[in-house]
């Protein structure tokens, strides 16, 4: 399949990498299919791009780079699930943050994704990357 995005141009990919989000993303319940794009120039950040609305893309990050025991504290088995935290860039770099409270959870074998809200009080929606 092929999609077109202003920032990436044409992106061609195998349909097998599409992750279904039956509930969408919180606040964007109609967006049901996403792909994760690796971007050498932006490592370790990756992109979560909506296949149905290719201009919609989130920068995502492995949460373990922020909180090393994140999987354990969030209660997800890393063998089954891949977790990503959504990054909110800010012109003021010190205000760039990640959403540790509501990660993207992907069932790796089923290729199913969901944004969940964790019942972990110390994880915040706006967690600055530079403290």
């Amino acid at each position, binding site marked *: 399949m092929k999609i077109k995005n202003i920032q990436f141009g044409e992106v061609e990919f195998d349909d097998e990498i599409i992750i279904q989000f039956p509930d969408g993303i919180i*606040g964007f319940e109609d967006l049901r299919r996403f792909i994760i794009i690796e971007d050498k120039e932006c*490592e*370790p*950040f990756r992109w979560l791009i909506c296949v149905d609305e290719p201009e919609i893309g989130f920068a995502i990050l492995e949460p373990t780079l922020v909180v090393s025991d994140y999987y354990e504290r969030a209660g997800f088995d890393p063998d089954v699930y891949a977790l990503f935290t959504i990054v909110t*860039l800010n012109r003021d770099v010190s205000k760039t943050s990640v959403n540790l409270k509501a990660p993207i959870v992907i069932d790796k074998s089923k290729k199913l994704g969901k*944004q969940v809200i964790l019942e972990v009080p110390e994880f915040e929606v706006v967690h600055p990357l530079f403290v």
Partner: protein
Amino acid sequence: MLVLSRKVGESVIIQGNIKVTVLEISGNQIKLGFEAPSDVLIFRQEIYEKVVSENKNALAVNRKSLKDFAKRFNVSRRTNI
């Protein structure tokens, strides 16, 4: 808005498959229990709204900004380790 009075231990049923039970009242706090199919999403309103607004802020990141930020992020990680 539909208004119903319930005592502790009493429930309401929504759509035949969602049950909300009043579990405990103490002062101005009420504990509610939810029984619903797993595809029903239940959130605390203020957290839900915060996540929606943060998702909107995060959407449509500029690639060049992310590239610049990634550089700084990688430098700070190296210095931290």
